[in-house]
């Protein structure tokens, strides 16, 4: 069949191909975006635009007939906890557990730190007083002895050659002999403390009390005299060297201790 044969009515596909070729990309984009086609567009394009308008026209009542059922479903779903909410709760659970654990650890740390500070006397005065009343911690003015030095050790403020017994010495280089094992021949001399230290307190507990003390016979503290001190071997062994204390600075021993009483030369 040649092109001249037959009328256009007998060849219906010819104008259709022509319409398809006229629909370019820009016109198609306008139709898809809902802008329609110009008035002088080919008939096929205008029919296409009309068809797309019908497809996008406002809904009728029959299309919205299910709104009541949809709202009922919405109420049902929103009133019951959804799976997503359950998942969110499940995800939040370990986080809360971790937070609780962290809080407990922090609280325990704070209690331990505060307790240590309270019993070391490092708290502010008012707080220390309160802790002292409530828990029996040391009082604010009380200086806590270090356990490593022992309750009968040297006072840290004293220099070498001083024995800590709660009573200050009369002068430099003099040993303090307050343990009342003085000789019975010694004349009682009352030597008041030159600079009494209010923070010093007698030790509450002594491991070795030593021989019984005479009631009122303090030993002389005159320079150059010999004095005896009562020091148990155990307390001597517990006595530690103070920082900076040399062997020469220690109290010289004239004889090895045998029975807990030994002479001490006071230079």
């Amino acid at each position, binding site marked *: 069949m040649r092109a001249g044969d037959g009328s256009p*009515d007998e060849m*219906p*596909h010819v*104008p*259709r*191909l022509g*319409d*398809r070729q006229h*629909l370019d*990309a820009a016109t*198609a*984009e306008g*139709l*898809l*975006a*809902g802008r329609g086609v110009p008035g002088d567009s080919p*008939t*096929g*394009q205008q*029919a*296409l635009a009309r*068809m*797309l308008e*019908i*497809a*996008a*026209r*406002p*809904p*009728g*009542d*029959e*299309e*919205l*007939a*299910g*709104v009541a*059922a*949809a*709202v009922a*479903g*919405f*109420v049902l*779903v*929103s*009133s019951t906890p*959804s*799976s*997503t909410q359950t998942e969110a709760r499940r995800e939040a659970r370990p986080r809360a557990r971790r937070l609780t654990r962290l809080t407990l650890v922090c609280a325990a740390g704070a209690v331990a730190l505060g307790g240590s500070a309270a019993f070391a006397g490092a708290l502010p005065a008012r707080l220390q007083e309160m802790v002292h009343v409530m828990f029996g911690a040391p009082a604010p003015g009380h200086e806590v002895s270090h356990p490593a030095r022992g309750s009968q050790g040297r006072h840290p403020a004293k220099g070498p050659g001083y024995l800590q017994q709660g009573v200050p010495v009369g002068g430099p280089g003099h040993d303090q002999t307050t343990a009342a094992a003085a000789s019975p021949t010694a004349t009682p001399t009352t030597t008041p403390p030159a600079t009494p230290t209010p923070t010093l307190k007698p030790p509450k507990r002594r491991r070795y009390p030593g021989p019984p003390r005479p009631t009122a016979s303090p030993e002389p503290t005159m320079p150059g005299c010999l004095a005896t001190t009562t020091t148990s071997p155990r307390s001597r062994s517990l006595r530690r060297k103070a920082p900076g204390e040399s062997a020469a600075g220690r109290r010289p021993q004239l004889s090895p201790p045998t029975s807990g009483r030994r002479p001490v030369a006071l230079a």
Partner: protein
Amino acid sequence: MLERDFASVLHAAARGDENAFARLYRDAHPPLVRYLRVLAGQGAEDVAAEVWLEVARRLARFRGDEREFRGWLFTLARRRVIDQRRYADRHPVRLTDDAEELDRAAADDTAAAALDNMSTEAVLGLIATLPAFQAEVIVLRVIAGLDVGQVVRITGRRPGAVRMAGLRGLRRLAARLSAEAETRKGVTG
């Protein structure tokens, strides 16, 4: 489209307001059902109901404007259709002998509604004869009012493929309309 009111309506619906949800439904359900008629045929209403239940469940977690809401809605619908097709492939339908029961008309089917629907149904039926991707692109762009970027996100195709599918679908529709017009002219003439 709700446009300015959308944010407040969405917020109210997310808090459980029924009226706000009804507004969202009235606005978005018609294009959704038309889209599903092209993709899923007779099961469009059922799929749409499932989609709205899914929307009700997830609405509190949705963030976005109206166009993003539409994109999200049609994405849910598309996934439902794909699931339905997979299910249908695994469970083929066994036909019964009672054809009269299957062809029974709906109770609320009136003559006016049927006439009104005929034109919309006819257009949707004509679009549904296109290749699936071309029909989907035309429905998403024309009926749902989405742009190329949103269609790309929903379908997972490239922008060029989406544009070309729309152009080819329109050309094919124009050709069919011309053919019908010629046929009608031949019948009446």
